[in-house]
C-alpha cells in the first residue's frame, strides 16, 4: 500500500460545493458496532435454528448425492401425468415420481436407487415402458448415479467444504491475525449455514452445482470480510487517534457503499442466470443470491463483530516496524 501523495491545496469552500453534487457524498456514519452483540446473538440463534432445520427437514438432495435414476422426456404434445404414471406402472415402475419440468409436455421421472445389480439398464427399460418409440417421445436426458458414487460425493463434498474453510482461515491468519481469522471463518460458516437453511426451508434441490455455488460463495463472502479488515488495518496505521471500536466503525462505514455496489452487480448477474439460465442452474443462482445478501450482513456483524468481541487490538495488526515508528515520538 503505497502512499505519499502531496496533500491537496484546494480551497475548502470550492470543495464543499462540488462534492455536494455527488450521490452518497458523505461517508455514512452509522454506529454498526453498537449492535454487535445483538447481531451476534441473532446470528447464533439463526444458526441454531438452521441446524435444527437441517436435522429435522434435511436437504432435498438430488440424485448426485442420493443415487438413483432420473429421466427427462419431451412428448410431442401436452401429456397427463397420470397417463405417464400408468405407462410406468405397467412397466413395473409404479413408485416412480413423475412431475412436469418446465412445461406440460416436458416430464421428469425419478426412481429411487435400487441394489446395484444392473441398475444402469433401468433407464432403457423406463424408455421402453413409456413407449418412447411409438409415441414420438424425445429423450432429453438420463442421469443414473450408483449409490456408491453418491455416497462418495457426499463425503468428498463435505471434505471440500472443510478444506475450503481451512485454506481460507490459514490465508487470513497469514495476512491478518488469528482473531480476524476466527471472525472470518465464523462468517463463512454462518453464510454457508444460512444458504443451506434457505435451501432446506424451501426444499430447493441440492445437487453438485449447488455445492459448487456454496463453495464459490464461501470465497466470495469472505471477499467482504477481507475488504473491511484491510481497511481496519489501514486506518489503524494511519490514524493513531480513536479506539479500536471507533476505527472499526469508521472502516465499516467507509467500505459500506462499495459492498452495496458490488453486491448489486453480483445480484444482477445472478438474477440474469436465474431468469434465463434454465432449470439446470436454478438452484445455483438461488444459492448465490441468498448467499450474497447474507454475506453483506455477516461481513459486518459476524466477522468484524466477533473480532471485536474477541478483543482485537491495535497491536495485533500493526506490523512490527511501523510499531517502532509509532513509539518513537
Amino acid at each position, binding site marked *: 500500500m503505497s502512499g505519499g501523495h502531496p496533500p491537496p491545496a484546494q480551497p475548502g469552500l470550492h470543495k464543499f460545493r462540488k*462534492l455536494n453534487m455527488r450521490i452518497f457524498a458523505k461517508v455514512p456514519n452509522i454506529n454498526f458496532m453498537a449492535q454487535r452483540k445483538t447481531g451476534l446473538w441473532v446470528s447464533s440463534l439463526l444458526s441454531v435454528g438452521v441446524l435444527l432445520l437441517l436435522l429435522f427437514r434435511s436437504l432435498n438432495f438430488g440424485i448426485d448425492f442420493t443415487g438413483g435414476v432420473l429421466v427427462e422426456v419431451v412428448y410431442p404434445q401436452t401429456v397427463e401425468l397420470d397417463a405417464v404414471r400408468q405407462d410406468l406402472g405397467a412397466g413395473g415402475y409404479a413408485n416412480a415420481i413423475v412431475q412436469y419440468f418446465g412445461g406440460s409436455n416436458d416430464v421428469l421421472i425419478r426412481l429411487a436407487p435400487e441394489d446395484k445389480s444392473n441398475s444402469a439398464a433401468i433407464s432403457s427399460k423406463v424408455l421402453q415402458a413409456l413407449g418412447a418409440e411409438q409415441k414420438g417421445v424425445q429423450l432429453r436426458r438420463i442421469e*443414473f448415479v450408483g449409490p456408491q458414487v453418491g455416497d462418495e460425493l457426499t463425503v468428498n463434498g463435505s471434505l*471440500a467444504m472443510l478444506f475450503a474453510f481451512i485454506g481460507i482461515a490459514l490465508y487470513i491468519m497469514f495476512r491478518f491475525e488469528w482473531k480476524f481469522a476466527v471472525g472470518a471463518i465464523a462468517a463463512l460458516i454462518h453464510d454457508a449455514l444460512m444458504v443451506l437453511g434457505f435451501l432446506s426451508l424451501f426444499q430447493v434441490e441440492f445437487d453438485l*452445482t449447488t455445492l*459448487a455455488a456454496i463453495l464459490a460463495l464461501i470465497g466470495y463472502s469472505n471477499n467482504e470480510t*477481507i475488504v473491511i479488515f484491510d481497511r481496519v488495518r489501514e486506518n489503524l496505521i494511519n490514524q493513531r487517534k480513536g479506539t479500536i471500536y471507533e476505527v472499526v466503525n469508521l472502516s465499516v462505514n467507509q467500505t459500506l457503499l462499495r459492498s452495496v455496489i458490488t453486491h448489486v*452487480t453480483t445480484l*444482477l*448477474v445472478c438474477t440474469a442466470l436465474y*431468469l434465463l439460465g434454465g432449470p439446470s442452474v436454478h438452484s445455483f443462482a438461488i444459492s448465490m443470491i441468498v448467499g450474497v445478501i447474507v454475506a453483506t450482513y455477516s461481513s459486518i456483524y459476524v466477522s468484524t463483530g466477533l473480532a471485536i468481541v474477541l478483543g482485537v487490538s491495535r497491536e495485533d495488526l500493526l506490523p512490527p516496524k511501523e510499531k517502532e515508528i509509532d513509539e518513537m515520538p
Partner: protein
Amino acid sequence: MQPYATWKYVVLILVMLLGAVYAAPNLYGEDPAVQITRVSGDPLPADFGELVGKTLTAEGITPALSELESQQWIVRLGDETAQLKTADALKRELGNDYVVALNLASKTPTWLRKLGAKPMTLGLDLRGGVHFLLEVDIDDVKKKAVERYLNDLPAFLRKEDIRYVGRHQSADAVLLDFAEADKLDAARKALAREYPELALNVPTATPLTLEARMSDQEAKRIVDFAVKQNLTTLRNRVNQLGVAEPLVQRQGQNRIVVQLPGVQDTTRVKDLLGATATLEYRAVDDGDANGAAATGVVPVGTELFYTRNGHRPVLLKKDVIAAGSQLTDAQSTVDQDGSPAVSVTLDGGAAKKMFEFTEKNVGKPMAVLFKEREVVTNYNAKGEPIREHRDVEEVISIATIRGVFGKRFQTTGLQSKEAYDLAVLLRSGALAAPVDIVEERTVGPSLGADNIRRGFQAAVLGLTLVMVFMIVYYRVFGFFAIAALVLNIVLIIAGLSILQATLTMPGIAGMVLTMGIAVDANVLIYERIREELRDGETPHAAIEAGYDRAFLTIADANVTVLIGTVVLFALGAGPVKGFAITLALGILTSQFTAIVGSRSLAYLVFAKRKLKDLPIW
C-alpha cells in the same frame, strides 16, 4: 500525475491481441463433417482420397472439402442431410476396418490453426452425448486370483513331491495344512522360489498351516492389470461405434470414464460395452488350408479360420490348449536379445496342458484364435440399418514352438508395434474382470442446444445489466470498467481455448458470475477514488491513490475466491470442474484487466487534462 509507463501499454496491447487471436476460433462456427480413421490406428492408405472421392461421386454428393487433417480424413459437407448420407455411403463402402463418425469440424481458417488456435470443446451437457462411469469389480478380481492359487499351489507341491494334507481358502489367502514341520518348511522354500509375489507365513495358532497371501504389491498389480485390460477392450469397442472424439480414460484406482459426444442410443452403447471377447491357443494343422478354403472341405478334427492381418486361411486343430480365462497376464516386453516380444503367463491348469503339448510339438506352429461377439450395424436392401450380433473369429498370431514351456512363455520375432498390438489383443481376450456401470449421464441434443441458448442469453442479459448499472453509476469510469470486463471475457474464452478446457453449463454460470465479481475490483478502485476526492485530494492524485491502494485489497479478496475454486477443482466431477476452471481463470484475468486495463484507459483519458473534478459520482 505520472503518465502510465509505455511498456504497460505495450503489454496490454499484446495481451489484447493474443486474447483476440486465441478466442477467435470460437466465432467461426462448425461444418457438419464425416471423420474417418482406421480401426487399427494405422495411417490411412495413400490413395484413400481417391477412394472417398469415388464413393461420393457415385452417391452424387459434392463435399465442401475432403482432405487429410491431422491423420484423420475429414469430409466437410454443406448440411446435415448430406452428412448422414455421406456417412452411410462411406460406412457401406469401407466396411468394418474403418471408423466412420459424424463430427462437427471447426471452420477456423488455416492461419489461425497454424498458430495453434482452436475453439473450446463443449461439454456433454452442451452438445449432447453419453457419459458412463464404469467400475471394475476389484473384489472379484482378487477372489479369482485366490481361487487360481488354490489350484496352482497344490499342483506345484505335487510336482515338487512335497506332501500336504489339506488345502482351503480363507477370505483372501490360501491355507495349506501339512503333517510335519519339515514338510512345511520345504514347501515354504519351494513356494517362495516359484511364487515370489506371495507372502508366506505360519499363523501362531496353527503351526502346521502355511498361509499364502498375495503381497500388497501383487494385489495392486492384478487390479491394475484388470483395469488396463478393460480399458483396452473398451477402447477397441468404442472405436467400432463410430464416434468422433470418444474419451475412454481411467479414473482413480478402479474406474473408467467413457464419454461419447453426440451418441444418443445408450442401449446400443451398453450392449457394446458388455460384449465379450475370449481367445484360444490351438495347434496349427499342417493340412492344405488354401485347398480347404477353396473347396470348403475341412479335414476331420480341424476348423478353418482366417488371419486378422492379410486374411490368409489357416487350419486349426479343434482341441483347445489354453483359453482366455486361463491367461493371467500378457505384456509386451523385449526378450534377451533386446527384440520386441510378448510375455504371457498362464494359470496352473493351462500351464500343465501347455507343458504336455509343447513337450511333444517342438518345432511345430501354434496359433492364437481371437473370438469376439460384437454388435454390428449392417444395412438391408432398403438401406435401413439393422443391428446384429456378429461373432468374429480371427487368428491373431501364429508362432513356432521353440522349446518346452508351461506357465510363462514369450512370443518373439515381432515388430515392436506388432508386439504391442498382440499384447493388447491377448489382454482383451483374457477373462475380463466384471464391470459395473456406476454412473450414466445422457444428454439429448435438444437439451444441449437449449443449454447453450440459455447460457448465452443469461450471459448477455447479465453483461447488459452490469454495463447499464456501471455506466449510469460511474459514467466515464463505468465505460473503463466495462471495457475491462469485455476484455476479461475475451481472455477467459481465449484461456479456455488454449487450455482446451471443456465448457459446461456450470462453466457458463461461472463466466456469468465472474462478470459480477470482476467489476468488484473496479468498484473498489472507484469508491476509493471518490473517497480520496472527498478527503480533498486533487483528481489526479485521487486516481493514482485509488488504483494504488486498492491493489492489495483486490489481490487478497481474489485469493480467497481462488482457494474455493481450487478445492472445487480437486473435488472435480466433470461439469463442476468446468465451473472451477472458468471461475479461477476469470478471477486471475480480472486481476489484470480490472487493474492494468482500466487504469491504462483512465490515464489515457485523464493524465494530460487539467481537472477540477472527476466525472465520477
